């Protein structure tokens, strides 16, 4: 029983980090029809800038805010410079965003040096609670809580605000939104910046979780996020939460019970979903 709870918390924490990364990806794909392979780069920049801010300010709150700000600014630059010229052309998007992903990774080495960096857990969130035989690592619980808060905030924005309505409608049919006279390009930019901010948040939270950060971490983690987007349904926010939790839990349980399969399980999940429900668990497109 204790083991199950521990595996559950592990899986949920990993799932939440993937969710934060996938949430931006799914909205960017669903609304803007853009395949953004540079998303992992924004994630890695979030991790590095967060560790840097933490080192300088000694405040984890400021580190989180600094990382998000870095992500949002990078998102702005990426959308304007890299994405805008290739709207509507998937092949070009894949090529240029993959290229930009490499640029982002290499720039990390230029700015922060080529070596791995150690990331500390803030003292307040270090350690664990023991309840009976169940060990709850504080930082993991913290990640889970942040994940649910972010989900709640974004659901609120999507369901209850004017821009949320435009985004939801845009995911269904962006030509029609434009026909109404709404400047959807501007909404694209906002969504891209928000997605980049979420990726950076995921990165800064990931750093103490894994203990070390390195320039290629974005590439590795982004693959999981892509799997989540496919499983959850492209453009669906709740879908990406559910799928991320699923992927997180599957990884956590498999790693314990069938370690040999722990890397394959996500691909298997995706294959099963693609066979039986190719549109993903949720559908956002109209």
């Amino acid at each position: 029983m204790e083991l199950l709870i521990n595996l559950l918390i592990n899986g949920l924490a990993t799932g939440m980090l993937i969710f934060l990364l996938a949430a931006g990806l799914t909205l960017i794909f669903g609304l803007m029809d853009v395949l953004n392979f540079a998303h992992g780069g924004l994630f890695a920049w979030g991790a590095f800038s967060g560790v840097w801010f933490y080192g300088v300010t000694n405040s984890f709150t400021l580190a989180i805010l600094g990382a998000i700000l870095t992500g949002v600014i990078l998102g702005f630059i990426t959308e304007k410079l890299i994405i805008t010229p290739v709207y509507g052309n998937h092949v070009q998007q894949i090529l240029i965003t993959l290229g930009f992903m490499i640029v982002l990774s290499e720039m990390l080495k230029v700015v922060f040096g080529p070596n791995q960096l150690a990331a500390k857990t803030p003292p307040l969130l270090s350690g664990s609670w023991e309840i009976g035989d169940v060990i709850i690592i504080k930082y993991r619980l913290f990640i889970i809580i942040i994940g649910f808060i972010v989900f709640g905030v974004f659901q609120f924005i999507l369901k209850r605000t004017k821009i949320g309505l435009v985004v939801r409608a845009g995911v269904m049919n962006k030509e029609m939104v434009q026909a109404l006279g709404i400047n959807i390009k501007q909404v694209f930019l906002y969504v891209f910046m928000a997605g980049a901010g979420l990726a950076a948040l995921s990165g800064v939270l990931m750093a103490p979780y894994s203990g070390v950060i390195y320039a290629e971490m974005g590439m590795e983690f982004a693959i999981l996020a892509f799997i989540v987007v496919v499983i959850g349904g492209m453009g669906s926010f709740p879908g990406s939460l559910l799928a991320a939790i699923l992927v997180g839990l599957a990884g956590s349980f498999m790693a314990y019970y069938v370690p040999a399969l722990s890397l394959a399980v996500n691909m298997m999940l995706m294959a099963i979903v693609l066979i039986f429900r190719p549109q993903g668990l949720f559908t956002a497109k109209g």
Partner: protein
Amino acid sequence: MEPILRTENLTIKFGGQTAVDNVNFEVPEKHFKSIIGPNGAGKTTFFNLISGELKATSGDVFFRGESLSGKSSVARTRKGIGRSFQITNVFPNLTVIENVRLAVQSKEKIRYQFFRHFASYKDLHIQAERLLEIVLLTSKANAFATQLSHGEKRKLEIAMLLALDTEVLLLDEPTAGMSLEEVPAILDVIKQIKQTGERTILLIEHKMDMIMDLSDSIMVLFNGRLLADGTPKEIMDNETVQHAYLGGLYDEHLA
């Protein structure tokens, strides 16, 4: 008085085919004009040229005397030309009221206030509700658009078009694909819009009784050309028009 909408030698060619051929027409403000013609006469293409979905090969469209050449459909909507769509084109997974609200809010520019909570936008909601009343859809406000019947979807489209609050309305076959029982309700809606006397309306329709009932004037398109333009009575009495509809010209052109 300057007509609200005018075209000058409006022409569009697709390859060798001239779909709209040198059409000159004008419509005064708050006028109700219908456009008729056999299938393939270029009626919808003519609308697309006015609304900016298609770019004219030559000629121009003028709104209140101002050339619209080079203006996007979005820019034209903002200026005051709103267009309904022939294909049912609403947001399926939004509720009926959300669909209308989206159209209402589209009039505003996107700014920071965009992020405010909807409850503070009571007037938006009230406007949307009022429009649903006009198109007789109040009882379906919280249904998802995908659950509506075809006729109800057409009503929703009209509500969204009205929400754009444009001076000119381009209605492209609002009764297309409707069951006979649904037609009178749409007719009532259009009559109601006409009676408010605030809008200039251009209507493409095949149902002649409806056209005779509503129109101040009728123009006839045939093979992309303007065949006739006049009051309903003049059009009915026009021999060329009768000829065209009876098939005489068809034969000549198709032979």
